[in-house]
């Protein structure tokens, strides 16, 4: 019989321990599929961050390291400079990447480090129990914004792709989602392009996945998909923000 569907080689046999309906596990699977498709599994090194995905290292079949909260891009930088032939990626939440780790994000992007960041933006701090994140939407209630996020008090949700698109070191930048099959497929394509940009030595790449966190949002998984589409989709437009390969070669004046 022909095998039409199976577990990607890059994934280990460890079952995911995320909540039912969580986007992290989907993103892991897509990451593994992208790595399999590109045929770079043994050369891959993953960097886990601090958040619900702190145990990302358990789920893959290649080398992994766990980084301090927000510092995964710096750790990936150190590894990549020592092992330039390896394919480096980090898997980070929004608190990790866009709050405590903002400096490491911006400067690794600006240096054009040949690493890929997989950014799971679920608008909340999942692991610590649903506190406000830098990407929490206006009006959204969390355990530290019990009245709903107010722009005058807590500022505005941070749009990472829009923020870093201007940086010259960025080679590939896309925002996707994993709330329906079309978006899932697009996310896999985006991950492959991001890794390809790294393999081609073009610079820094990042895929932001607008993600559902049913537990943190206090919703049933199915409702969280709908809420994501309507609420998050309105503030975080999906699409390619930068693709160095597609850009016309610049004339030197």
């Amino acid at each position, binding site marked *: 019989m022909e095998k039409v569907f199976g577990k990607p080689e890059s994934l280990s046999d460890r079952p995911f321990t995320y909540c039912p309906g969580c986007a992290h596990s989907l993103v892991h699977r897509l990451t593994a599929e992208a790595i399999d498709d590109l045929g770079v599994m043994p050369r891959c090194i993953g960097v886990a961050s601090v958040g619900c995905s702190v145990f990302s290292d358990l789920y893959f079949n290649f080398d992994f390291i766990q*980084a301090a909260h927000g510092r995964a891009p710096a*750790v990936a930088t150190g*590894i990549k400079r020592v092992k330039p032939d390896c394919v480096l990626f980090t898997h980070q939440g929004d608190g990790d990447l866009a709050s405590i780790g903002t400096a490491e994000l911006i400067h690794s992007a600006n240096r054009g480090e040949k690493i890929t960041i997989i950014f799971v933006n679920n608008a909340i701090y999942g692991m610590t129990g649903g506190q406000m994140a830098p990407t929490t939407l206006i009006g959204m209630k969390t355990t530290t914004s019990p009245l709903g996020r107010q722009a005058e008090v807590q500022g505005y949700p941070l749009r990472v792709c829009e923020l870093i698109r201007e940086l010259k070191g960025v080679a590939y930048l896309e925002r996707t989602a994993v709330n329906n099959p079309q978006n899932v497929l697009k996310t896999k394509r985006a991950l492959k392009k991001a890794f390809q940009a790294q393999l081609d030595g073009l610079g820094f790449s990042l895929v932001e996945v607008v993600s559902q966190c049913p537990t943190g949002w206090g919703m049933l998984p199915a409702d969280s998909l709908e809420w994501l589409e309507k609420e998050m989709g309105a503030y975080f437009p999906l699409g390619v923000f930068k693709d160095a390969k597609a850009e016309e070669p610049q004339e030197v004046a």
Partner: protein
Amino acid sequence: MAEERLLMKGNEAIGEAALRAGCRFYAGYPITPQNELTEYMSRRMPEEGGTFIQAESEIAAINMVYGASAAGARTMTSSSGPGISLKQEGISYLCGSELPCFYANIVRGGPGLGNIAPAQSDYFQSTRGGGHGDYRVVVFAPSTVQELVDLTILGFEVADRYNNPSMILGDGILGQMMEPVVMRESVTYDPSGKTGWALGNSEGRERHMITSVRLAPGTLERHNVHLRKKYLEIEAKEVRYELYEVDDADVVIIAYGTAARVAKSAVTAAREKGGIKLGLLRPITLWPFPTDAIADLAKNKQDILVAEMSFGQLYEDVRLSVCGKAKVSLLAHTGGGLPTEDEIIEAAGKCVASSEPVEIYPVLE
């Protein structure tokens, strides 16, 4: 490179010694009084085919070092007090994950932004671990530029031997002074000892995972006991100190680094004058601390005088080692103040004259 005789500034000597020890990754962030080291590495590291990164912060620098070390490189960073404070979380991760690295703290006056004058006030931070959790780093305390070189090379070896960070606790005087040094021949660093755990291409082997998270009940406690055993081995094997004119001394001074340089001159000057006979015990490692050597000394000496450029930090370890067996007095400068020979000789006189331990703060006199 072959062995050479050179006239070098302390900070640059650390950099050259690190390169000759096979260090090929440096990440740092500017801070006085250690900038010459960062600058030296920016120039020399590429010449040796290594990586130099001026990081966006000390936090990023230590985490780059964490990554580079995990990838099997000999790696280092350097800073001064405030920057080392920022690096503590990363150092704790290195210890928890059992990764080696070497770093230098060219100490300045604190607390806060303090000043850029030489100080020893990061003694507790260095010798107690410094960050969160149960861990230690090996702390070397050089007092000459030659020792900066030798202890840097030893620092890399010790770090690799125990898979644990080691550091130099210097100060602005040592970092800035020029002295002749014998620069050792370059070693060919062989990373093959790390192939069992370093990150890289996992083709044809079990995958490697480096982490400091241990959530399953009992696993962290077991791991920490394993660390504790390693630290006990370091305490048994790596203690280093120098004894100078102690045999017939009436008062033994205990001092390290720059303070020990002054103390050594005070010992000689006092003997030339024919007054109280002074001797010196100079710890070369601050952790592990020469506890046994000091305890031995306390058996047949009445007076010990701790001379330090901090408020009673070294004093605390000396008193713990002496355990009430001798009178331990303190001569302390802080915030950039330096002891003088005369102060030390005078303080020794006060120790002998008093039946109780004395604490002397020259700035108040």
